[in-house]
C-alpha cells in the first residue's frame, strides 16, 4: 500500500542497487544495496566524499550505466529490462541531463542545442513551454550564438534549458556548476530551483559544493555506496555541519 503510494510519487527510484566494478582483488563496490526515491517536483542533491558512489548512482538512475544487482525505475519503467534503443528513447523523452562540461554540440547554435532532444526525436517543441524555459534561463538574446561564443555560465544554462525542454520525468545534473565562478553558478542554480518550484520539474543533482547543494529541497548523503543520511531544506551552514559530522 505504502509502496504503491510512494511509487506514484517518485519520478525515479532505485531498489537494492549494487554496482561492482572490476573483479577479484580489484573489485570496487561503487553502490552497495542502495535504495532511494526521488519525488516528483523535488530538487534533490546527492553529496558525499569522493568514491562514495554519488556519480555512479546518478549514472545508473539515468540509464547511462547498468546495475550489477537491483533495479532502477524512471516513472513506472524498469530500466534493467530495456534494450539500448528503448533505453535511448527513454532518455530522450523522460530524462534530461546537465553535465559538468562539454554539454553542447559545437556546430549547433544555442536554440538548436536546446531543441536537440526534440530534433533527434523528430518532434515539435511545445512553443509556450520553450518560450517559458528560454525566458527563465535568460538567454533570449543569445539563441543564435554558437557555444564557442557563449560564456561558461551561459553554456551551462543552455544545457539546463535543453534538459528541461522536453518536459522530462526527471533531470539529472552532474556537478553542473563545477566549472563556474560563483556568480554564474548562482544564476544556473537559481534557474534550476525556479524550474522545480515554479514549473514543477524534478531535478537530481550531484555536487560536492555545499552552497550549490543548499539550493536543493533535500540532500541525501552517500558513503561507501549507500545512503548514510538525509537532510530536508538545507542551508549551507547546516550542510557543512552535517559534512563535518559525517567526516568524523
Amino acid at each position, binding site marked *: 500500500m505504502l509502496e504503491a503510494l510512494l511509487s506514484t510519487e517518485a519520478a525515479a527510484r532505485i531498489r537494492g542497487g549494487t554496482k561492482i566494478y572490476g573483479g577479484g582483488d580489484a573489485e570496487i563496490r561503487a553502490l552497495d544495496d542502495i535504495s532511494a526515491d526521488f519525488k516528483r517536483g523535488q530538487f534533490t542533491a546527492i553529496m558525499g566524499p569522493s568514491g562514495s558512489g554519488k556519480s555512479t548512482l546518478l549514472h545508473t538512475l539515468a540509464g547511462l550505466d547498468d546495475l550489477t544487482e537491483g533495479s532502477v525505475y524512471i516513472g513506472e519503467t524498469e530500466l534493467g529490462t530495456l534494450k539500448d*534503443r528503448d533505453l*535511448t528513447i527513454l532518455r530522450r*523523452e523522460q530524462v534530461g*541531463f546537465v553535465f559538468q562540461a*562539454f554539454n553542447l554540440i559545437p556546430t549547433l547554435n544555442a536554440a538548436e542545442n536546446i531543441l536537440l*532532444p526534440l530534433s533527434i526525436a523528430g518532434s515539435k517543441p511545445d512553443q509556450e513551454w520553450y518560450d517559458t524555459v528560454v525566458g527563465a534561463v535568460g538567454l533570449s538574446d543569445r539563441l543564435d550564438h554558437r557555444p564557442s561564443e557563449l560564456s561558461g555560465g551561459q553554456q551551462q544554462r543552455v544545457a539546463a534549458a535543453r534538459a528541461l525542454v522536453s518536459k522530462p520525468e526527471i533531470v539529472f545534473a552532474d556537478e553542473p556548476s563545477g566549472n563556474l565562478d560563483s556568480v554564474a553558478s548562482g544564476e544556473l542554480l537559481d534557474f534550476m530551483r525556479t524550474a522545480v518550484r515554479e514549473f514543477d520539474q524534478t531535478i537530481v543533482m550531484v555536487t560536492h559544493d555545499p552552497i550549490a547543494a543548499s539550493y536543493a529541497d533535500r540532500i541525501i548523503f552517500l558513503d561507501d555506496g549507500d545512503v548514510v543520511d538525509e537532510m530536508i531544506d538545507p542551508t549551507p551552514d547546516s550542510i557543512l555541519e552535517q559534512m563535518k559530522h559525517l567526516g568524523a
Partner: protein
Amino acid sequence: MFRAAFKGVFANKMRLSLTAFAIVIGVAFVAASFVFTDTVSARFDALLETTTTGVDVYVRPAQLADGDVWQNTEVGSIPEDTIASVLATPGVRTAEGGVAGFAQLVNKEGDAIGGQGPPTLGYSWAIDASMSPVTIKDGNGRGPEIPGEIVIDANSAQANDLAVGDTIAVLTIGAPEEFTIVGIASFGESDSLAGATLAMFELGEAQRLFDLEGQFSAISVAAEPGVTPEELAADISTTMNGDIEAVTAEQSNDEQLDVISEGLGFLNIALLAFAAVAVFVGAFIISNTFRIIVAQRTRELALLRAVGATAKQVTWMVVVEALIVGFVASVIGIGVGVLLAIGLAAAMNAFGFNMPEGPLTLLPRTVIVGMTVGLVVTIVSALLPARKAARVPPVAAMREELARPQRRSLHVRAVTGSVTVGVGIAALLIGLFTSVSGDIWFVAIGALVFFLGVSIIAPLAADPVAAVLGWPLPKMFGVAGQLAQDNTRRQPRRTASTASALMIGVALVVFVAVFGASIKSSVSSSVTDSFPGDFSAQSTNFAVGVSPAFTEEVRALTEIGDVSTVKIGVALVEGESTSIIAVDPTTIDTVTSLDVSPGAYEALEETNGVLVVESLLDENAWSIGDSVTIEYPQNPGGPTEIVGTIASENFGNYVITESAYIVGFSNPTDYLVFANSVDGVAIADARAAIDGVAAEYPNVKVQNKSELVADAEMQIDQMLVFFTGLLFLAIIIAVLGITNTLALAIIERTREIGLLRAVGMVRRQVRRMIRWEAVIIALFGAVMGVGVGLFLGWAVVRALAESGLGLFAVPVSQIVVLVLLAALAGMIAAIYPSWKASRLNVLEAIAYE
C-alpha cells in the same frame, strides 16, 4: 624521442595501418612491375639459351639503319649460296640454312589457333638436331622429311587435341593448305615459347610456303672447338658483302629479349603509371592522417615541449613515426608486389602468353626502389604535419584554447592554389598543344600540378559545396542529417584533402571515359565517312594481314564488284620510322572516300610518288612538289615526290602505291580489303559469297560497315575496362582515406557523440549521421573529379584533334553512374567508423579527454 615515436606508432596502429595501405599498394605496383619484367627476362634468357645451345653464330641479312623498326615483319633473306662461303670460313665446324615465316595453325573446328597475342611462327626443320631450337618430344614422331609433313609445338598440340598422324590446315601468306602431323616438338624443357605457335616444315616446302625459294632467312653456324663465337662472327662477316652480317647467338638472343621486353613494355608502363597514381593519392591520405594525429596529440606534444623537448625533437618524432610506417608499409608492399607479379604471370598464361617455367627474380634494385618510393612518399607527406607539430607551444599543454587548431587565413591558400592550378594548366597545354620535346612529361607533370592546385583551393570550396550537397539532409534525416552536413563544414581543410584523394581517382576515370567516348565517336564517324564500301576484310592475326590468295578469290566472285586493298608497313621517312600505307590509286576511290587533294590519286599513279597527311605538311613546311627520302626495309628507296595530300590521319601519315610497296616490303599481305557488291545483287547474297571464301581463311574477318564500327568500339571498350579497372583501385585507396578521416574524426568527437547518445540519439541515427558525412565528402570529391576529368579530357581530345580525334564526347550516363558509385563508396567507407561510433560507451565517451 625515438621511443616516443615508436609508442606513437603503436598507439595509433589502427589509423596508421589504414594509411599504410596506400603505400603498400603503391610500392606493390612498383615492385610487381620490376619483379615481373625481371622474371620474364630471366626466364626467357634461360629458355633462349637452351634453344640455341648448338649454335654459335647466325648469318643473316644485315639490319637496316634502324634495326628495331622492321623486327619480325620484315626480316628479309639471304641467297642460299651464301652457305658455301660460310662453310669455307676457317673455324666453322658446320652450318645449316633455314627459313622463317608466318604460319598459323587451324584447329579441328576450323578456327585459327592464336594470332591475337603471341606470334604464329613457321620454320624450316633443321637436319642437324644440335642446331634446332626445338626437339621432338620422346615418342612423339620425327621431323618433317618430305613436303606435306609438319611438326607442331607441344603446347598447341595439347591445347587443340592434335596428335601425330592428324591432318591439319595451315594458313600462310598463300592459300591455306593441309599437312600431316609427323612430330610434336618442345623448346628444351618447355612446351611453349611464350605461347607462340610453331609450324615446322621440310626446308624446300618451307621455302615455297614462305615465298623464299632459293633464299635463307638465316644460317646457323657451329664453331670448331677452341674458336669463340665472337671470333667466328667477325671472321665470317669479313667474307660477306654489306647486305649480310654474322652475329653471335648470344647477341641474337639479346635482341629477341629486347623484343619481348618491348612487348611487355606496355604492361610495365601501365603498372608504373598506376603505382604513381596510387602513391600520389596515398600522399594525400598520409598527409591528412598525420595532420589529424598531430592535431589530436597537441596536448601531448605540448607536454613534451613543456618538459624540455626542443621543437626539432618534436619534428623528428613525427618524422620518425612516418619513417616507421613507411618502412613497414614498403616491406609489406614489396611482398604484395611479388604476389602481384605471380598473379600477373598467371593472368598472362590465362591469356595465352605462356611464361616459361622458372624461379621468380627479385633483384636488389627492386627492393631498393620500392623501399625508397615508400619511405620518401611517407616522409615527404608527413613533413608539413611534423613542422606543424613543432609549432605547438609548451603552454598548450595547460590551456585548452591553444590546443585547438588555429584557423589560418584562406587568402594565402586562394593565391597559392590559383597559381598552382595556373602553372599546372599551362604545363598541360604546352605539352598538349605545342611540339615541345618531352611533351608527355609536360602533360603528366602538368596534370599532377593541376591536381595539387585544385586540392589546395579545395578547402575554399568545401564549405559552400558541402552546404549545397548536404542541403537536403536536414529535411530528410532531421538533426542527424544536419549534424552530418555541419561536420563536413567545420574543418574544410580536412574535408577537402580527404575529398581530393578521391578527386584524383574520379578525375582519371572520367578522363578515360571522356577520352574513350571521344575516340569511339570519332572512330565511328570516320569509319562511316571514309568507307562507303559494302564489306571490309582484315586479319585477326596481329602480325600478318590477309592473304593475297583470299583477295584473289574475292575478286573472282561474280557477286562482288569493286575490290581494293590497303597494305601497311613501317619505313624510314626522312630518317624517322613511321607507318606507311599503300593503295591501288586506280581503284581505291571506288571503296573509300578519303579526303585527298584534287587529282592526288591520278598523280600518285603517274609519278609513283607519295601522299602526305596535311598536318605533317604544315609541320615540316613541305609543299606539293617537294621530295621526301623514304627508305624501305627491302630496298634503299630514295627521294620521293610529294604529289598530293590526305586530310585524315586515321590510316597513316604517308600513302604510296601498291607497286612501290611490293618493291619495298617483303610482306605481301593486305591490311584491309574493301569490296562492293555488284549492282543488282542482294547484299545478303554478296555477303554469303564472300563469307564462303572467308570460311577457308579462318584468320580473316569479314565485316560490313556497322560491324566494323562495332568491332572498333568493342576494342576501345576493352582498353577502357582495363584502365578503368586499374583506376578504380585508386578510388578504393581514396575510400580508405575517407574511412581513416572519419575514424579519426570520431575519436575527436567522442564526447560529442557521447552527449548525443545521452540526450537520446539512437545508434541508427549516429550511424546515419556519419554515413551521410561520408557521402558528402565522397560527393565533393566526385564533383571535383568530374570537373577536373572533363577538363583533362577536353584538353587532350582538342590536342589530338588533328590526329583525327575531333569529336569531344561526354559519356553523361557513365559519369552519373560514377558519381552515384562515389556516393555509395562513401557509405561503404562509413561502415566501420559509423559502427564504431554507434558502439561508443556513452559514459566513457562523455568522460573522454
